[in-house]
C-alpha cells in the first residue's frame, strides 16, 4: 500500500475530473457541478489519506519518475510539514468554492473544468520537488486564474485579468531566472529540489542575486508593497469563488516560495538581506491595513487586508531567516498564518459574494442594517471578521502570536510596529461591521432571504475550521513544528 502513488492521485484527480467534463460535455449546470464537487471531495479525501499515512517531518511519500533525464529534471513529488497544511487548505477551499458557486449559470462546464485545472496546478505546485515541475504548475495557476477572472468576473474583468496576468508573469519570469541560476549553480546540475535543499548550491554575489530574483517573484505573488497593486484590482473583478481561491490559495504560493526557495535554497543570502525583507514586510503589513481602512468597497477592503496578513507571513519567515533566535516561532507562525488566512479570507470572500447577491452593491456607504435582515450571514461575517482581526480562540491568533514571539526575539521595535497593524485591522473591521450590518433594517430586502443550504454547506465548514484552528492549532502545528525543526537544524 505504501507504494501506491497517493500524491500523484491527489494532484491529478481534479484534472481527471476536468477531462471527464470535457469528454462528457454536460449541458446542465447540475451535472457539471456534480462532477466538479464530487471530484473535489475525492481530492480532499485523497489529501486526507496523505495526512493519515503520516508525515514525520522530512519529505515523505516520495514519488519519482524520469521525465527529462538529459537535463536532470524528473517528475518528483513529496510532502512535508510545510506543504501538507497548504495541500489540505487547497483541497478544502476548492471544495467549498465549488459548492458555493454551484449556482453559476454561465458556461458551468467550462467554469468547473477551469477550477479543477486550477486545483491540480495548486496542489502540484505545493507537492512538486522538482524546480521545473514546480515552475510548470506555478505557471498553470496563472493561466487558470486569468481565465476565471476574465470569463466570470464583473465590472471590468478583462482589464483586471490582464493586469493580474502581466504582473504575475513578470514575477514568474524572475522565478525562472532564479531557477536557472540554482540549476546552473548546482554540481552536478540538477532540478531536484531535495538535492538543492540539502546543499544550497550558491554563494556570494550569485546567491544574493538569485535571492533577489526569488524575493521579487514571490513578493509579487504574496504580495508585498509596492508590488501589490494587482491584487485589489483582480479581487474586485473576480467572481466570489475566484477571489476566495486567489486570496486563499494562490497568494500562499508566494509565502511557500519564500520558505521553500528563499529560506531553504539561498539561506545565507536570505539571512544577509533579512533586515530589508523584515522592513518591507512590516511596512507592507501596516500600509495594507491603512489602505484597507481607506476603502469604501467592502471587497476591496478585504483584499487589502490580505496585503496586511501576508506581510505577517513574510515577517515570520524573515525572522526565521535571521536564525537561530527567531527561528522556531516565526516559521511555525508563518505556515499556520497561511492556512488561517486561506480559511478566513476565503470564507470572507464567499460571504461577500453572498452579500453582493442580495444587495447588488459592495459600497459600504449604501449598505446598513443587514444583521436583523440576514442574521446568519451577518453572524458568520462578524465571526470571520473577528478571526481576521486576530481575536484569540479564532484562527489567526495562534499564528500571529507566534510570529510576534519570533519577531520580538530578533527585532523588538519592528514587532512593536507590526502590532500597530493589528489595531488598524480592528478599526477597519469594526467600521465595516458597523456600517454594513448594524443599524435599522433596510426597507427593501432581497427575495433570496438569509443564507441558503448551498451557501451554508460551503461556508459552514470554513467557519468550523476557523474555530478549530483557533482552539486546537496543535493538529496542524504538530506537523509544521516537526518539519520546522528539521529546516532550522539543517541550516545551523
Amino acid at each position, binding site marked *: 500500500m505504501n507504494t501506491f502513488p497517493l500524491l500523484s492521485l491527489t494532484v491529478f484527480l481534479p484534472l481527471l475530473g476536468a477531462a471527464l467534463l470535457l469528454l462528457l460535455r454536460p449541458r446542465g449546470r447540475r451535472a457539471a457541478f456534480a462532477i466538479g464537487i464530487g471530484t473535489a471531495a475525492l481530492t480532499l479525501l485523497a489529501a486526507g489519506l496523505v495526512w493519515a499515512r503520516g508525515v514525520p517531518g522530512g519529505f515523505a511519500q516520495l514519488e519519482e519518475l524520469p521525465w*527529462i533525464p538529459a*537535463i536532470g529534471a524528473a517528475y518528483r513529488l513529496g510532502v512535508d510539514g510545510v506543504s501538507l497544511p497548504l495541500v489540505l487548505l487547497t483541497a478544502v477551499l476548492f471544495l467549498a468554492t465549488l459548492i458555493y458557486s454551484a449556482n453559476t449559470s454561465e458556461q458551468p462546464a467550462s467554469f468547473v473544468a477551469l477550477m479543477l485545472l486550477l486545483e491540480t496546478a495548486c496542489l502540484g505546485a505545493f507537492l512538486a520537488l522538482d524546480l521545473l515541475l514546480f515552475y510548470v504548475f506555478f*505557471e498553470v495557476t496563472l493561466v487558470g486564474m486569468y481565465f476565471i477572472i476574465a470569463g466570470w468576473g464583473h465590472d471590468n474583468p*478583462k482589464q483586471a485579468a*490582464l493586469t493580474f496576468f502581466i504582473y504575475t508573469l513578470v514575477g514568474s*519570469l524572475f522565478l*525562472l531566472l532564479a531557477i*536557472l541560476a540554482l540549476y*546552473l549553480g548546482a554540481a552536478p546540475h540538477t532540478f531536484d529540489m531535495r538535492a538543492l535543499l540539502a546543499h544550497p548550491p550558491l554563494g556570494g554575489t550569485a546567491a544574493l542575486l538569485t535571492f533577489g530574483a526569488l524575493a521579487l517573484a514571490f513578493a509579487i505573488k504574496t504580495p508585498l508593497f509596492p508590488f501589490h497593486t494587482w491584487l485589489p484590482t483582480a479581487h474586485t473583478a473576480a467572481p466570489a469563488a475566484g477571489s476566495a481561491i486567489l486570496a486563499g490559495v494562490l497568494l500562499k504560493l508566494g509565502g511557500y516560495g519564500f520558505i521553500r526557495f528563499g529560506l531553504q535554497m539561498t539561506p545565507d543570502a536570505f539571512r544577509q538581506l533579512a533586515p530589508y525583507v523584515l522592513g518591507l514586510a512590516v511596512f507592507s503589513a501596516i500600509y495594507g491595513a491603512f489602505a484597507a481602512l481607506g476603502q469604501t468597497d467592502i471587497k476591496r477592503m478585504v483584499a487589502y487586508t490580505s496585503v496586511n496578513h501576508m506581510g505577517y507571513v513574510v515577517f515570520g519567515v524573515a525572522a526565521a531567516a535571521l536564525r537561530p533566535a527567531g527561528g522556531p516561532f516565526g516559521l511555525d507562525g508563518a505556515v499556520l498564518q497561511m492556512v488561517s488566512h486561506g480559511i478566513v479570507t476565503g470564507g470572507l470572500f464567499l460571504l461577500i459574494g453572498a452579500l453582493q447577491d442580495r444587495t447588488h452593491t459592495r459600497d459600504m456607504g449604501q449598505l446598513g442594517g443587514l444583521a436583523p435582515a440576514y442574521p446568519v450571514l451577518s453572524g458568520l461575517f462578524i465571526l470571520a471578521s473577528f478571526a481576521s482581526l486576530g481575536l484569540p480562540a479564532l484562527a489567526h491568533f495562534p499564528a500571529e502570536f507566534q510570529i510576534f514571539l519570533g519577531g520580538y526575539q530578533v527585532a523588538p521595535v519592528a514587532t512593536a510596529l507590526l502590532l500597530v497593524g493589528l489595531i488598524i485591522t480592528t478599526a477597519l473591521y469594526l467600521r465595516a461591521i458597523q456600517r454594513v450590518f448594524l443599524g435599522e433594517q433596510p426597507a427593501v430586502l432581497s427575495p433570496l432571504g438569509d443564507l441558503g443550504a448551498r451557501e451554508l454547506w460551503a461556508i459552514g465548514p470554513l467557519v468550523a475550521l476557523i474555530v478549530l484552528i483557533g482552539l486546537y492549532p496543535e493538529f496542524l502545528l504538530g506537523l509544521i513544528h516537526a518539519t520546522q525543526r528539521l529546516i532550522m537544524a539543517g541550516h545551523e
Partner: protein
Amino acid sequence: MSSGGMDMKRDLLLVLPQIVLLLTAVGALVAEMLRRRRLGLAWTLGGLGAAGAAALRQLGADTTAFSGTFRVDALSHWSVLILAPAAGLCCLLARQELRGTPREGTVYSLLCFGTLGAALLAGTGDLMFLVLGLLINSLSGFALAAYSKTKAGTEGALKYFIYGTVTTAILIFGLTYWVGITGDTLLTSLARPDLPPLALAFGFVALITGLGYAASIFPFHFWTPDTFEGAPVSVAAYLSVVPKIGVFFALAQVGRSLPANGPVAWPLVLAGLAVASMTFGNLLALLQQNVVRLLAYSTIAQAGYFLLGVVGLPAGAGARRALIVFAAAYAAMNLGAFAVVLSTGKTLADFRGLGTRRVFAGAALTVFLFSLVGIPPLAGFAGKLLLFEATMAAGYTWLAVAAVLNSVLSLAVYLRVVAAMYFGGTGETSDMGPVSWAGQAVVVTCFLVTVLLMFVF
C-alpha cells in the same frame, strides 16, 4: 589517400541523405516542367522524408567522406533530420500560400536546393564545401525571395542579393588567406600551431561576414526585415530557419577545428556578436507593428542564442548537443509562428481577438512565442537551458547572464502579440482566406514538437 571503388561507394553511401536531397530537388523541377504540381509536392515531401530516413539510418556514425572534406557526424545527420522536415513544412506553407500561381512547383524545387545547401554546410569539413553549400543555399534563397513581383518584394530580394554577393565575395576573399597559409582547404589544417595569426584572423573575420549574413547575425543582418516583409510568408519562414541552421552547424564545424586558445580568440568575438545580436534584435523587435518584421528581428535575436552554442564548443560535446536541440526547437517554434501569421495577417491589428476567434491558432501561437522566450516546459526552454549550460561550461558566465537578461526582454516582445490576441478586443479584420489542410498540418506538427520535444530528446 587511398582510392578505389570500395571507397567511392562507401563515400557515396555516407552522403546518401544529401544525394537524396539533390534528387528530390531535381525531380521537383522535372515535375514542374511537366506542370504536375501535386505530383511535384508529393515527390518533394516523399524525397524529404527519404532523406530524413537515410540520415536516421546513419545516426551514430562519426566519420568523414571524400578524403575528409565532408564530415559525417552528429551535426550533419541532425541537420538533415531537422532541415528535411522543416523544408517539408515550408513546402506545405507554400502550398497554402502559392497554390495555383505560375511558379508554384519551382518553389518546391528551390526549397529543396536550399536545404541541400544548408545540409552541405552542416557537414562541411573543407573550405570548398563551405563555399559550395553557402552558394547553393544563397542562390536558391535569392530566387525565392524575389518570388513576388511587388515593389517591396523586389526591393527585399535585391537587398538580400546585394548583401549575399558582397559578403560572399568577402568570404571567398578571406578564405584565400587560409588556403594560402595552410596549403590546403581542409578545416583540420587550421589546427596547426604555426600559422601566421594575422592571416588566420583575417580569414576568420571574412568567414563570419559571409556566414553571418546568411544567419542574420548583427551587424550583417540588415537585409532581414525588408526581405522577410517583401517575400511570401512561406519563404520568409524558410529563410528564417533553413539557412540559419546550416550556417551555425558550419560554424560549429569550423569551431571544432580552430583552436580556441590559439592566436585567434574567436569565442570571445562570437560572444560579443551574440550579445549584440540578441540585444539589438530584441530591442528593435519591441518597436515593430508588423508581425513579420517582429519575427524578423526576433530571428536576429535568436541567432545570438545560436552563437552561444558555438562559443561553448571548446568545452566539450555538450555544446554540440545544445546546438542540435535548440535548432530543432527553433525550427518548430519559428515555423509554427510563421504558419499562424500566414493564415492570420501581417500587422498586429490582424491578431486582435484571434485568441477567441480561432482558439487553437491563438493557443498554438502563444505556445510558439512563449517557447521562443524560453519558458518551461516548452522546446525553447530545453534548447536555451542547454545553451546556457554549455556557455557556462566554457567559462562565459557573463554571456549566459546576458542571454538570460535578453530572455526577459524578449518576453516583452512576444507578449505584445499575445496581448493583442487575447486582450486587444475583437478585431474587425477578416483572416487571410480559409486555412488549408496544409497550413493546419504545419501548425499542428509544430505545436506537437514544441510541446513534446522536451520529453523525447
